[in-house]
């Protein structure tokens, strides 16, 4: 931020994010500030605080405020098979490579409510790779991880999910994987037999395994450039040689100091491959 542009609200936000880090070790200080500001102002309004400072006071003294605020700061809406062409590229271009490995590790980084995780689990089952794959689904928000583990979505969303799934080159029907119950679609728990749900931060945590595919879509856009670079470095160090990294359709490695560690594999779908060297 350039000097002199900070409003009182900007200062309050700076102080709240510092408090959140000092008190609870959640580090949003290098998130892109414009989105964080929108979310904090929304939290202030909906949680009925007079100011961001008042919200910060409550956050420091009342631990129950932490999950409430995290749900504003982290949760993003998504869809199963969002951008079907991405999943089609995984199916037709990436999985033929992954098929050559006897066992596979896949990391869904920033899994939020699990839409991308279930999409991948269904894709891998359709392509006969599920039995040899372990999925790691990570997020910093415990509520989001619980929701991902539950695998329950509103039936209103299912029509869009189904349409996306079909466009991804589906070999089965999405309805094979859930039961509908009072306006909810409950996904088959066998889809998460081989899923490890875990708290992990791209901001503060380290490598935890050697992955063959990392899918991290529309997470990096919330970071500033240096933090994006940290996360991409973490992905580089987490990938097996020739492993794959899938990003969101408007995310890029172009400005990263780690760009040389990757080659363009399916550039139109933002799928990159770890170089061997």
């Amino acid at each position: 931020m350039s000097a002199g542009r900070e409003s009182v609200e900007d200062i309050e936000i700076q102080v709240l994010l510092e408090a959140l880090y000092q008190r609870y070790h959640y580090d949003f200080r290098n998130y892109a500030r414009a989105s964080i500001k929108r979310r904090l102002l929304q939290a202030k309004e909906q949680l009925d605080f007079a100011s961001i400072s008042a919200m910060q006071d409550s956050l420091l003294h009342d631990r129950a405020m932490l999950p409430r605020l995290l749900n504003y700061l982290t949760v993003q809406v998504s869809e199963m098979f969002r951008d079907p062409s991405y999943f089609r590229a995984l199916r037709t271009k990436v999985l033929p490579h992954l098929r050559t490995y006897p066992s596979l590790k896949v990391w869904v980084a920033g899994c939020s409510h699990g839409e991308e995780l279930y999409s991948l689990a269904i894709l891998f089952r359709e392509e006969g790779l599920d039995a040899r794959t372990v999925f790691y689904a990570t997020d910093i928000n415990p509520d989001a991880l619980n929701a991902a583990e539950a695998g329950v979505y509103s039936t209103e969303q299912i029509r869009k999910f189904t349409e996306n799934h079909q466009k991804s080159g589906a070999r089965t029907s999405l309805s094979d994987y859930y039961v509908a119950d009072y306006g909810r679609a409950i996904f088959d728990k066998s889809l998460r037999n081989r899923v490890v749900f875990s708290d992990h931060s791209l901001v503060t945590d380290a490598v935890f395994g050697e992955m063959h595919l990392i899918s991290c879509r529309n997470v990096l856009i919330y970071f500033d450039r240096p933090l994006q670079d940290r996360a991409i470095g973490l992905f580089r160090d987490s990938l097996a040689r020739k492993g794959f990294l899938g990003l969101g359709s408007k995310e890029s490695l172009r400005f990263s100091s780690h760009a040389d560690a990757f080659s363009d594999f399916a550039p139109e779908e933002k799928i990159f491959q770890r170089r061997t060297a």
Partner: protein
Amino acid sequence: MIGGRIRAVAIGASAGAVEALLQILPSLAADFPVPILVVVHVPPDRSNALVPLLQAKCQIKVKEAEDKEPTHPGVVYFAPADYHLLVENDGSLSLSSDEPVNYSRPSIDVLFESAADAFAPALTAVVLTGANEDGARGLKAVMDLGGDGVVEDPAGAYAQAMPAAALGACPSARSMNLDSIAHYLQSLEAA
């Protein structure tokens, strides 16, 4: 800020956007003194066909906004389909996948409110034709911080609801037809 010096122009348009933008952007010189940020409501699964269409007809450079991109004078930045476009305080751009605002992603309010924080009062915000009310709240944020508000005259607009809502929220915004908006923008100077 009437006839004043600015650091950026922000434009929002919905139904009828293409025709309206074709009356404005091609009239601007290649060395337009500030960046122009544009949100047009387009269906989420549509790749942005507007950018090549307008680039072919404009002297000013037209591109799709990229995440964390710095902004430059003489360039028009379009929000990509299915992403919000926001301005950071240093004038660079961010994209977000947050929930739709006014049923829209990208949303004009999201652009205008963040652009107000980054640039106002040295900001001209323009609400064009549209059949919803996106942009009204954002224009108010711009004008509350002393920025300059311009609204397409609803009487001549392809769709009246959006400019009418903007004028409802901001009665002191200047209402003019597309030709006058084009001339007005040509007269702006960099802060």
